[in-house]
């Protein structure tokens, strides 16, 4: 990867981290508020993000838009027949999301905001990921 490539993803990531903090999506309080159905804030953000994403992806597919390198954009479909994996894995993720009040993007953005304690959940998430890798063949999918 060339330097300009790194810079590109670094800038998009910076933009992402900035919005995550400014919108307070990274806030443990906002996640509590969401799961308690006390405010529209988080639903508005996720909902609007999906609507904008959906419209863009449909345009990209319909018009066969190519990426900046001239390659066709392909989006690999996910295997919906593995219902167990999505229900059980998703629920385990949800337990963690509510407990920690942060999903992977916010964990890193919070670290950047100066909360060095986030190194602990990030390390724990790596252990969790590795544990999944070890147990993968023994888990129902």
């Amino acid at each position, binding site marked *: 990867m060339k330097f300009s490539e790194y810079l590109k993803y670094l800038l998009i990531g910076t*933009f992402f981290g900035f*919005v995550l903090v400014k919108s307070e999506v990274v*806030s443990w309080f906002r996640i509590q508020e969401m799961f308690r159905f006390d405010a529209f804030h988080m639903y508005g*953000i996720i909902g609007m993000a999906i609507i904008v994403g959906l419209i863009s992806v449909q345009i990209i597919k319909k018009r066969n838009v190519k990426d900046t390198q001239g390659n066709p954009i392909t*989006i690999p479909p996910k295997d919906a027949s593995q219902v167990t994996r999505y229900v059980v894995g998703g629920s385990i993720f949800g337990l963690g999301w509510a407990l920690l*009040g942060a999903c*992977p993007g916010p964990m890193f953005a919070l670290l*950047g*905001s*100066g909360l060095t304690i986030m190194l602990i959940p990030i390390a724990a998430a790596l252990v969790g990921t590795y544990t999944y890798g070890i147990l993968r063949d023994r888990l129902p999918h």
Partner: protein
Amino acid sequence: MLDLLYQPWPWYVAGPIIGLIVPLLLIMGGKMFGVSANLRHICASCNFANVEFFNYDWKTAGKWNLTFVVGSIIGGFLAGSVFANPEPIQLASSTIAELQALGIQDFNGLVPDDLFTWSALGTGTGLIVLVIGGFLVGFGARYAGGCTSGHAISGLSDLQLASLIAVIGFFIGGLIMTWFIYPIILS
């Protein structure tokens, strides 16, 4: 104008901007937006037990995404430190009352000091939130094949049924934790 950088952004501004990350990554490099894949890439970079799931060329697959994550740390620094909002979050009063009843005292920052400090790590509650919470996020994200960005935003943007099921799972787990388990943990 500079005020905008310090103030919190409303949902109708932040939501569309986050959604734009999806086409931006697709058009700029043909990449699918998803943060938790990076946890797998990092595991693959130091696969000490030679687990098959992590035996792949993580550099080719993940360099772009790991760079994206470094960017989000920088973005977090700019938004949360350089242009930090000095005011407490404008939470619903019912949420504040319910959390106060559970013993949360600090409502000043993005997260409560009661749980997110190095000294809180020494308490049972802090340990559970930070360590078990992190573990479940990492384990669950990989088990489900994605997290909030990969499934809820990218997957639903592509009308993937698998992602819809996963997102329903996210809420099942989240609601169980918030309503049934958290009150026990905080008591």
